[in-house]
């Protein structure tokens, strides 16, 4: 099965396409692929409990590794204890790690 790194830089408050991209992560994971969804920039906003957090929570509960860039979180004042269940803060190094591992990497 494939290994995927999906990087979401956009947020559902601003972009309707962000939901489709995150849903793709879920579809890939359900098919048995290894999937990391890495949230960066405004993509971390729904990682703080909000009206648009339910999709991320569902993904994290269903085989998608959902990570949020520590730098972006700090920049937006989102402390780790405000993160929704299943989302973990992570350094951007993870993206370079997974690129180096050869994961299929898609930035949205």
């Amino acid at each position, binding site marked *: 099965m494939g290994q995927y790194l999906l*990087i979401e*830089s*956009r947020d559902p408050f601003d972009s309707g396409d962000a939901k489709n991209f995150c849903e793709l992560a879920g579809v890939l994971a359900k098919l048995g692929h290894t999937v990391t969804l890495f949230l*960066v*920039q*405004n993509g971390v906003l729904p990682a703080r409990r909000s009206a648009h957090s339910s999709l991320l929570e569902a993904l994290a509960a269903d085989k998608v590794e959902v990570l949020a860039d520590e*730098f972006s979180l700090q920049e937006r004042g989102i402390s780790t204890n405000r993160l929704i269940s299943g989302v973990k803060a992570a350094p*951007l*190094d993870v*993206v*370079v790690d997974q*690129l*180096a591992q*050869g*994961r299929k*990497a898609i*930035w949205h």
Partner: protein
Amino acid sequence: MAEKKTLTFATMDPPFENARTTTAMRLIDIAARRGYDINVFAYEGAVYVPFAQQAQHPNAVHGHDVEAEDHPLPREWVVAVIKEAEKNGGKVDWVNCGLCVDERGAADSVAGVRRGTPADFWSMASGSDNTLVIPTK
């Protein structure tokens, strides 16, 4: 020392407009610190990232003169990551898309940046362990 890799990044955004420029530079910097060989294909507005004529300015709103404001200049970041990669046994090959340079009048780039074409992007991507395209919105 981490195993040496070759990564290619394509970027599209000009500096000072959105967060993608700084995130791209953060990724390139991480790879440079690891001593990777790094290719950058700057497409469209991204050809302004290494533009040599970027200049600092004061900030009267904050009461800063030029020195106090110390405004970041992405061209300095490009020079810095090129140096950082070399220091760690890697290199940065920064290619500005030539036609994008022409239409923007952005030919005056910092040292270490060369002019290229989409064929260069394909060639870099084909020779890399991985390639990440960071699109504009």
